[in-house]
């Protein structure tokens, strides 16, 4: 239990990822699938940021006093942050591709519903 409270972030990460995964698998609406994908992705980003966080640490921008000899323990981990920073921007671009595909499908089948699209294709 102690461990669960100390690692509450990771529990939320798993819950968010599973909510997103459930939406991608179970929801029939294509836009909802896209939103689920984005939620899964933010869950993973939260995971990386939680890994890089340090107790009582400052943001990863050095103050002028720390220029010559920065104390590693008081500066948050910049590495996980930059990996996630680029992931967010790539994420919005891929979300755009997903929405573009959904829009194309809608104009051919006039529906976002997966079952209706499959029925249309069988005809």
């Amino acid at each position: 239990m102690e461990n669960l409270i100390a690692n509450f972030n990771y529990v939320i990460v798993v819950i968010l990822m599973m909510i997103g995964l459930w939406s991608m698998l179970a929801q029939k609406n294509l836009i909802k699938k896209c939103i689920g994908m984005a939620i899964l992705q933010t869950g993973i980003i939260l995971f990386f940021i939680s890994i890089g966080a340090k107790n009582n640490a400052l943001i990863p921008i050095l103050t002028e006093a720390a220029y010559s000899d920065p104390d590693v323990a008081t500066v948050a981990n910049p590495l996980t942050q930059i990996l996630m920073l680029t992931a967010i921007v790539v994420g919005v671009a891929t979300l755009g591709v997903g929405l573009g595909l959904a829009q194309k499908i809608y104009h051919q089948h006039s529906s976002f519903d997966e079952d209706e699209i499959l029925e249309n294709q069988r005809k």
Partner: protein
Amino acid sequence: MMPSLPIWQFDVLLLVLVVLFAVVALSIRNLMGAAVVFGAYSFMMCLIWAGMGAVDVAFTEAAVGAGVSTVFIVSTIYNTSATMRSRPGGIAFKLFIGVVVTLAGVFLLSALPDFPDWGDPNSPANATVAPYYIENSIRDTHVPNLVTSVLADYRGFDTLLETIVVFIACIAIYSILRIETAKSKTDEPEEDTATAPPSYDPSDSLIVRQASRFMVPFMQLFALYVIAHGHYSPGGGFQGGVILGASLILLAISFDLKFILRQWREKPLMLLVASGVCLYATVGLACMFTGGNYLDYGSLDSVLPNDRAMARSHGILLVEIGVGITVMFSMLAIHINLASNGRFDRGL
């Protein structure tokens, strides 16, 4: 060990709220509502990250997740439909997926005891390579914002390829949605403007137009500041580029898509998207011609006025500008494609 910070309870509240917003965004039946709740979700997420000291990430998420991606979803819905058809049945399938997903979640949670405690400065992720960046960034590059120096210098290849991914995504949306203009001319009813001049268009508001006319210059100035000052404060090419793109998207929404298309035609737009990536790659090549490795800005000191560390700082600025250009115009191009359904004539 439990962290004894007072901020910790606030974090728990935000984390619970985030899960709540995620559930609401996925269960709400109106898609427009889902898009707005998703924006709120992103904003809560951004607060959590800022609380953990990831200010650059929070900044990016505020601009991208809460801003631009919500606009993308809204402009897709504008072109299609916001209602979800309710169909009977399928509960068993959803429950089955629910069980599968819960099992996967339990499986992942079973690894929880092996994790180092949250915020442990000696955890493997914090203790191996990251201290090098913290200790040497100033000496190597003169950049106090460690995120910027790692992003554009130490891990320059990573960022170059991420920028290329954004560029490729932009091309992908073009190839999926773009329709020839000739087809769109026949699609558009010519008599539409002549026979039905709407006396009052509820989507066209004078207040919104004038307000955005005032806001856009300040947004763009701020975005340029964010790019140029990214060495010393949160910000950089990605954030500034997204804000610049958002300022143009704001114009496109508050006025008319035609208004923005008069200024940014299709071909220059695509050339500008490509030119950002080219600028980044060219800086890398210039490093090779001055005797260093690819993207090793230190060798640029033979061309640039100052010493090696300062040359790396200038190199970072150059590639950040490249990133900013690509991100700005790809955001605009993706929005135009989604909002006009690839026709490049009218839309949201």
